[in-house]
């Protein structure tokens, strides 16, 4: 569906179901340089099980217009505006990688609006490798290739996509190259690198929180994810073996099972 936030058109996948204001809202926030499509193996399930599932394209990404936002703080405010724009008062947030920084910051800023927080491959800070950052800011496609290499665990490098016939790494590469790299990945990487408030923001979070981490995640290692989770009261942690940073694709079923249990328990769907 399309709607406007701050004058710019926003695209969000509704998981194949019409948006229904009566249903509780879950917002999925993608990682650096990516799009709503990374969530396809999570969003459709919730959309067909009593929720409004909204996988957004951040401004300037995927099918959304406007320019990419330059800071995690701006993105956090933007997510809050999305909730308003679709006519809801509250939402459950799910973030991946950079999306974790955004949703942590958003939850700390708008505690009354956010009912649950789910973090996948999250950390309190994501400092960027300077060379990778420079490649992305200079529009070099090698930045995407490096990101796809590091983002997939050893097992993920062999493939084995849960959807028959799809090949992880090339699909991710196409998503990250679908818009101009320096305007998406470059801006996002800089925003991640600049963001320093993650640990302080985490301390303010009071809603039920889940962290899904992966043993082979090179971009946001388990110890960093645990450090963030330890600062959030009552945070649950689930660790997936043999999996890299792209857990939402590499181990989509496992992620969905854990996410489903957590969200339906803490933020029940509209019963049919």
């Amino acid at each position, binding site marked *: 569906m399309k709607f406007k936030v701050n004058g710019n058109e926003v695209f969000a996948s509704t998981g194949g179901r019409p948006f229904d204001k009566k249903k509780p809202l879950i917002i999925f926030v993608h990682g650096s340089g990516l799009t709503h499509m990374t969530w396809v193996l999570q969003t*459709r399930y919730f959309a067909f099980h009593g929720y409004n599932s909204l996988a957004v394209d951040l401004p300037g990404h995927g099918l959304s217009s406007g320019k990419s936002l330059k800071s995690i703080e701006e993105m956090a405010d933007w997510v809050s505006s999305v909730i308003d724009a679709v006519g809801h008062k509250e939402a459950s947030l799910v973030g991946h990688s950079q999306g974790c920084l955004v949703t942590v910051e958003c939850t700390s800023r708008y505690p009354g609006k956010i009912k649950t927080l789910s973090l996948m491959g999250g950390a309190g800070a994501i400092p960027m490798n300077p060379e990778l950052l420079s490649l992305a800011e200079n529009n070099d496609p090698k930045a995407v*290739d490096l990101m796809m290499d590091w983002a997939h665990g050893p097992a993920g490098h062999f493939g084995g996509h849960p*959807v*028959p016939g799809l*090949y992880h790494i*090339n699909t991710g590469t196409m998503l990250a190259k679908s818009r101009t790299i320096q305007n998406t990945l470059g801006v996002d990487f800089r925003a991640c690198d600049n963001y320093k408030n993650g640990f302080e923001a985490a301390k303010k979070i009071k809603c039920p929180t889940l962290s899904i981490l992966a043993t082979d995640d090179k971009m946001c290692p388990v110890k960093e994810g645990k450090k963030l989770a330890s600062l959030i009261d009552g945070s649950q942690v689930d660790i997936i073996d043999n999996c890299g940073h792209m857990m939402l694709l590499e181990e989509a079923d496992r992620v969905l099972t854990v996410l489903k249990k957590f969200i339906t328990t803490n933020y029940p769907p509209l019963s049919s």
Partner: protein
Amino acid sequence: MSDKKKELKPNTYKFDTLSLHAGYQPHKNAGARQVPIYQTTSYLFDDVDHAAALFNLERGGHIYSRISNPTVGVLEERVASLEGGTAALATSSGMSAIFLTIMTLCEAGDHLVVSSQLYGGTVNLFRLTLPKFGITCTFVKPRDTEGFKKAIKKNTKGIYGELVGNPGNELMNMPEIANIAHEAGIPLIVDSTYQTPYLCKPFEHGADIVIHSLTKWMAGHGSSMAGILVEGGNFDWMQNDKFPTMTKPYEGYHGLSFAEEFGPTAFTMKARAEGMRDFGPCLSPQNAWNVLQGLETLSVRMKKHCENAEEMVKYLSNHESVAWVSHPSAPNHPDTKLANKLLPNGKGSMIAFGIKGGKDAGVAFINNVKLASHLANVGDTRTLVIHPASGTHSQMDEATLKFAGLSHDMIRLSVGMEDIDDIKNDFEIGFRAARKPRLVSNQ
């Protein structure tokens, strides 16, 4: 110690590694090192909710082997990885891959621009069978790049061709024709059977969908029929209103928009969800496994095929019984420059040559060679020969044969991996017989 900073390089697996490993994780398959053959029709659901989620594309997995199968899935991912594609869908033959591609792309009333130099069966599909479904085609000679542009109409939904045409070996200018297609907002579909991804990756030159008959070089052993379509993931289906079945809510899946939901894999998802459901040209797991065995040695075999082919080009070019030779490696081939650009690892192992003495000499040659097999296939590890005008392209009338660049003296040669001297010696037997065509053809 040098303090020179090490350059960052992606360590994703390369071609030879992918051809052995892509698409398969032993630890998810009881530790089996070889890909298991899942000889089964169907798969258990955990519960009703799980079943509904699978049918509704809410989660990945297998339901019924007409739609997908774990062994076939490994093959699909492996070929997608080798081509640099986002997704692939394997079918029971190359022809069914072509048919499924067209039926996923087009509706009744649509039009395609098609290269005139194609495998004879493909020509007949476009010329005679697709019109029965309300899909019409305009044929353009492969070297007539501007002709492709001129043939595009308002209802044209794609351009289709073989990079190196069967059997005349004329090249289409893939990068330029891709630009023409993209300017018109339509995809370029390339049958890359002759090349395999070892010789050419069409997505790097603008193609949007790649088709293979896996029966040929990809398998190599000539034991199993199989086909595949591969998606490049770069085509924007939402740029115009030409592809409503990709972009608008689809009734068959609760209003799903394939382009919105699946983006770079939308075409494959639709081809599987709709095409395999409704037409059902599924690949058997045994044949998928057989093809996987061949794929493991693809680069090694293609090097040998190309090496032997280049030797045969030299041999035939200097032979007194040969009127002409067509192969992209031949110095007088009109497309050498383009071939060097698009086929840097080798020009393939298909040779067309004209035999002096015309049709009778050709028949005599084919009837007398002993090592080369006379059959309707290409890309076997063994050397194969055929006389297209009386074999693979015999269902084409005179005018169509001429437009496709086929002559009655043409022999199509698929060079195998035998010792090159043995192939040449065998050809000498054929040529000797061809010089006495009347005697031999009356046998």
